[in-house]
């Protein structure tokens, strides 16, 4: 890891100003940043430590929803009784992520900005070509081993998966990312790779994520996060789904349903076609399985990741059937 200087910010304003310098980066839990610095993927000149800032880790949950400070730890949010009660899928997306140690370190702000686990991206010494790391250099994954690569939202420049779990649940329930006074719907926060895969979010230089806000909804309250992976724990998703359902007063007709996918797309992926086809219906296994196939409309395989096009709809269907009491 190349050397850098270390600076402990005394206020959000100071941190924001310090990161306007070209080589400066914010340091939160460090679980993405230091990992990638060791891989030689990021080479900061200065790290601006924000973990000592007071107040940025507060959480409140009330009838309107949850507000979670950017410095709240993944583990704290996963265990928060209010989050577990009003947003089970959000709590589960966190408790099924990484390990207990990492969840004690990693912050919510950093979590939203975690980078892809594309193994070509992570090895600059062996694979110089990577448009995400080095715009215009090409993509080593296309034509390579693509088992863990995206099938949705890809471009000819990059097929890397956005690996985060939390963001998938947040996209399902229309959460917002807050950067001081600027507030962006989480779906608009992440960008498709297109021709510029190095540009991943709408965050601007010098901007700091101060927190997230999740509006309360009956669908969020009756929700689940299903994560399927190569090993049972401590592993990224092969495919995952956040699903929430609100039923009409009859207890069986779908009034509102939210479906989002993880582990298969270049950004957290809301599956509105699935939602639209089930709203107003009474769930049954056949209809749910058929609707779930709409979640991979437009999916493109690169060989090794073909299985995800089969797997993702099954994960979606199982999550919907579970919430509908049919599994």
């Amino acid at each position: 890891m190349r050397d850098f200087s270390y600076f402990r910010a005394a206020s959000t304003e100071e941190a924001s100003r310090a990161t306007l310098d070209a080589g400066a980066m914010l340091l939160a839990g460090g679980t993405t940043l230091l990992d990638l610095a060791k891989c030689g993927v990021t080479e900061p000149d200065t790290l601006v430590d924000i973990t000592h800032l007071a107040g940025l880790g507060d959480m409140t949950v009330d009838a309107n929803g949850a507000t979670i400070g950017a410095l709240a730890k993944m583990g704290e949010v996963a265990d928060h009784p209010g989050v577990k009660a009003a947003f089970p899928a959000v709590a589960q997306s966190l408790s099924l992520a990484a390990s207990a140690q990492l969840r004690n370190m990693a912050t919510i702000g950093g979590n939203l900005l975690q980078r892809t686990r594309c193994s070509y991206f992570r090895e600059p010494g062996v694979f110089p070509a990577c448009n995400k790391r080095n715009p215009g250099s090409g993509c080593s994954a296309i034509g390579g081993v693509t088992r863990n690569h995206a099938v949705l939202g890809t471009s000819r420049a990059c097929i890397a998966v956005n690996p985060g779990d939390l963001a998938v649940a947040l996209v399902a329930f229309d959460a917002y990312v807050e950067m001081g006074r600027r507030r962006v719907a989480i779906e608009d926060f992440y960008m498709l790779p297109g021709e510029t895969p190095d540009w991943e979010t709408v965050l601007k230089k010098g901007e700091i994520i101060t927190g997230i806000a999740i509006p309360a909804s009956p669908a969020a309250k009756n929700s689940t996060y299903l994560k399927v992976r190569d090993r049972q724990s401590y592993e990224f998703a092969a495919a995952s789904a956040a699903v929430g359902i609100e039923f009409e007063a009859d207890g069986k007709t779908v009034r509102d349903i939210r479906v989002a996918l993880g582990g298969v797309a270049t950004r957290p992926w809301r599956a509105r076609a699935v939602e639209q086809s089930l709203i107003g219906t009474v769930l049954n296994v056949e209809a749910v399985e058929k609707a779930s196939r709409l979640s991979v409309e437009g999916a493109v395989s690169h060989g090794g990741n073909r299985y995800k096009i089969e797997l993702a709809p099954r994960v979606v269907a199982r999550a919907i059937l579970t919430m509908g009491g049919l599994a």
Partner: protein
Amino acid sequence: MTRTIHLSLDINGKQHELDVEPRVTLLDALRESLALTGTKKGCDQGQCGACTCHVDGKRVLSCLTLAAQVEGRQITTIEGIAAEGGDLHPVQAAFIENDAFQCGYCTPGQIMSAVACIREGHAGSEEEIREYMSGNLCRCGAYNSIVAAVREAAEMAATGVAAKDKAEVA
């Protein structure tokens, strides 16, 4: 140009002074600067748990923590959990009772993780232990014994009966 920074770290209840480059991790500071080599380096990338320590009582990975970040925090390593007089921590004792290691390389991390896991209340069943200890890999595959040791230590913490006393009764 290599600049060092001066740090004062509270480790196992003792203040340690050191001068290190800003990029030095807590793991390297412990092992290379302070000769506290009980904490192990496996992957150095957050993927194995061998470097697990406690910061303010919470288990974290020292390989992804900068030494500079934990100034002012209370750090506990495997060297700091036995009693003053040298009596092993109950989790250490349970690992010995249950033969919960082969080569022993992952063991300090396993024990630090297990102490926290029990304290968090996440050691209620074998299934829960496997989930909440999943951040600690064991390349020797001593998992069954590790789970048994954590179970025993958790029960002991709940009932107050020590592993070796139970063995004597049996």
